[in-house]
C-alpha cells in the first residue's frame, strides 16, 4: 500500500485539523516541538488499526487516497463519539479509480450499507467496512494493505519484546518459509534475522555491514543457536536463533538481548527496513532520541543503499537527518491552535538552492518553521 494523499480532522472547533497532504515514498515531517507531527502519525496508525482490526473506532473524519496492488482507491470515513462513550460510524465511502471514472465499492450512511451497489443487511456501525468485509475478494487486498502499516515504538518494553528469543522446530520445512515468517510482523528480531540470513543473504550482509559500521567495535556478527551460547541447556529438538555480536577484545559472543538500548534500537530499525513488505508503510517518530551521533547518521544512507520502494513517514529534529533527506521529501508543520498547516518542502527547493547555507540552517531560519506554533 502507498498513501497518495491524506487528510484528517475532528469536528470540534478546538480539535485537530490537518490540511490535506500529498505524500511521497519518503516523507520527513519537520517542525518545532508541539506542531502536531506525532499526532499526525498517530491518526494514520489509528486509521490503519480500525481498518485492520475490530479495535474500537476512533472518532474523526479521514479522507485518504491510496494505491494497493496497482489500483487507486479513495476512502472517506467519519466516526462520531456519543455521550455514552461509544463511537459509531456515521459515513463511509470507498471507491476505486478506473478508466471509466470512480466506481463506488462501499456507500454507508447511518444504517444504510451498500457494497458494490447492492444494499446488504445491517452490520455493526462500530467497525469499518474494510474490517467487516475483509473476506470479500474486493476488500481482502485493502485489508491486507492496512495491516502492513506499522508504527515503530522505541519504548524499553517494546525493545525488549522485539529482541525476544523464539524457538522453531529444528526440522522445519522450507515451504514454511520466509514470506510467511517474515511477514508475520509479530515475530521478534532474532527470528526475522535468521530467515533473512537464509533467504536473502545479500540483504542480511548489507544489514551486518551497516551494523558493524555504526558500531566499529564489533568484530563480527552471527546468528547462533541458543544451545551454542548455553550448552548446559537440555536438548529440546528445537532451534532458537539468536543474533549475536563478537566485540573486539572480548572473547565471548553477546546475544542481542544483552546489547545496549541504542544498539537494540539500531538493530530494530535496520531489521524493519530490510524485512518490511515492499507494499508496507513504516511510521517512525524521532528515532534519533537517545542515540549517539554515529547511530543517527546511518539511516539516510542505509535507505539509499537498500533501494527500497517502501513508504516511510518519519519525524526528526536532527540536523544530520534533515540535511541528508532531500528537501523535496520534507513536510513542514505549523500549528495555530488546533489547525495544522503542512507546507511541502518542494516549495522551498528553489529558494534553498540559491543559498550556500546547509538545508537545516535554512529550515530553522524559515519563519514558517521557527514560529511553528503560533501563540
Amino acid at each position, binding site marked *: 500500500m502507498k498513501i497518495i494523499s491524506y487528510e484528517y480532522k475532528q469536528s470540534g472547533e478546538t480539535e485537530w485539523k490537518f490540511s490535506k497532504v500529498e505524500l511521497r515514498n519518503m516523507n520527513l515531517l519537520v517542525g518545532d516541538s508541539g506542531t502536531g507531527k506525532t499526532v499526525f502519525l498517530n491518526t494514520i496508525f489509528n486509521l490503519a488499526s480500525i481498518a485492520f482490526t475490530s479495535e474500537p473506532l476512533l472518532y474523526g473524519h479521514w479522507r485518504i487516497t491510496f494505491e494497493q496492488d496497482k489500483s487507486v482507491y479513495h476512502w472517506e470515513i467519519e466516526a462520531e463519539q456519543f455521550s455514552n462513550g461509544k463511537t459509531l460510524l456515521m459515513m463511509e465511502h470507498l471507491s476505486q479509480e478506473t478508466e471509466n471514472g470512480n466506481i463506488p465499492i462501499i456507500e454507508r450512511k447511518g444504517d444504510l450499507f451498500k457494497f458494490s451497489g447492492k444494499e446488504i443487511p445491517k452490520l455493526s456501525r462500530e467497525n469499518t467496512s474494510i474490517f467487516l468485509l475483509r473476506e470479500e475478494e474486493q476488500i481482502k487486498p485493502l485489508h491486507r494493505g492496512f495491516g502492513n502499516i506499522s508504527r515503530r515504538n522505541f519504548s524499553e518494553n517494546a525493545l525488549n519484546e522485539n529482541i525476544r528469543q523464539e524457538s522453531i522446530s529444528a526440522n522445519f520445512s522450507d515451504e514454511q518459509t520466509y514470506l510467511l515468517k517474515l511477514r508475520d510482523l509479530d515475530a521478534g528480531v532474532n527470528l526475522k534475522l535468521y530467515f533473512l540470513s537464509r533467504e536473502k543473504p545479500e540483504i542480511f550482509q548489507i544489514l551486518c555491514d551497516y551494523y558493524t559500521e555504526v558500531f566499529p567495535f564489533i568484530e563480527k556478527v552471527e546468528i547462533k543457536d541458543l544451545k551454542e551460547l548455553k550448552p548446559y541447556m537440555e536438548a529440546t529438538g528445537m532451534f532458537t536463533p539468536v543474533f549475536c555480536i563478537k566485540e573486539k577484545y572480548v572473547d565471548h559472543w553477546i546475544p542481542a538481548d544483552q546489547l545496549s538500548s541504542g544498539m537494540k534500537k539500531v538493530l530494530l530499525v535496520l531489521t524493519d527496513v530490510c524485512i518490511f513488505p515492499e507494499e508496507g508503510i513504516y511510521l517512525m517518530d524521532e528515532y534519533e532520541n537517545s542515540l549517539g551521533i554515529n547511530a543517527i547518521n546511518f539511516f539516510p544512507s542505509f535507505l539509499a543503499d537498500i533501494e527500497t520502494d517502501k513508504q516511510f513517514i518519519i519525524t526528526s529534529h536532527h540536523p544530520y537527518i534533515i540535511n541528508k533527506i532531500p528537501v523535496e521529501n520534507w513536510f513542514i508543520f505549523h500549528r495555530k491552535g488546533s489547525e495544522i498547516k503542512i507546507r511541502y518542502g518542494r516549495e522551498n527547493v528553489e529558494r534553498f538552492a*540559491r*543559498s*550556500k*547555507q*546547509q538545508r537545516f*540552517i535554512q529550515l530553522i*531560519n*524559515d519563519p514558517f518553521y521557527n514560529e511553528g506554533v503560533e501563540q
Partner: protein
Amino acid sequence: MNMFVVVEGEIGERRVYEKWIPFVNPKMIWVESIFDISENNFAIIAGGGYPNYFEVIENAIDDVNSADTVDRFVIAVDSEEMTFDEKYLEISSFLANKECSASMFIVIQHFCMETWALGNKHVGPRNPCTEILKKYKNFFNVLADDPELLPGYPPADLNRAQFAEKYLRATGTEI
C-alpha cells in the same frame, strides 16, 4: 542601505534584531531571506550557536557575494566566557582572508544579549518581590553595577551567561 545580519543563537536574538533595527532606523524593512533584499531591507540568519556559526558566517559571505544587494554584513555574537577583545579577535581573524562584497561589521554582545537587557534601567529589579530575585540582587545589583561585570552564580553552579539569563527571566516575571 541594505543589511544582512548573522546572529548567534536560534530564535531569541533574531526576534530582538528584527524589532530593534527598524526601531533605530525606521526606513529599514525586514525581509525573510537575503535573496528578498532590494532597497532598505534587512534579513537575519541565526547561526545556531558557537561554534556552528562559523560555517553559517562563511556561507553567509558566499550568499552576500552572490546576492550582490547587501551593503552591510553584520555579525552579532556573544563573547560568553571570553573577554570582549578575545572574541573580537577570534571573529576578525576568521574574517581576515574572506572576500566579501559588503562592508563587514562585528558586534560583540558582551557577554551575551541578556546582559544588555539587564542594563535596561526600566526593567531592573528595583523592588524585587520574589525570593530568587532578592537573592540575585543581593549577590549582584545590576541597577548599581555594570551587568557586563556580572559573575557566575556559584550557589546554583551557573556560569555568567546562564546567570544572566536566569536573572533576566526572574526580572521579567516581575514586570
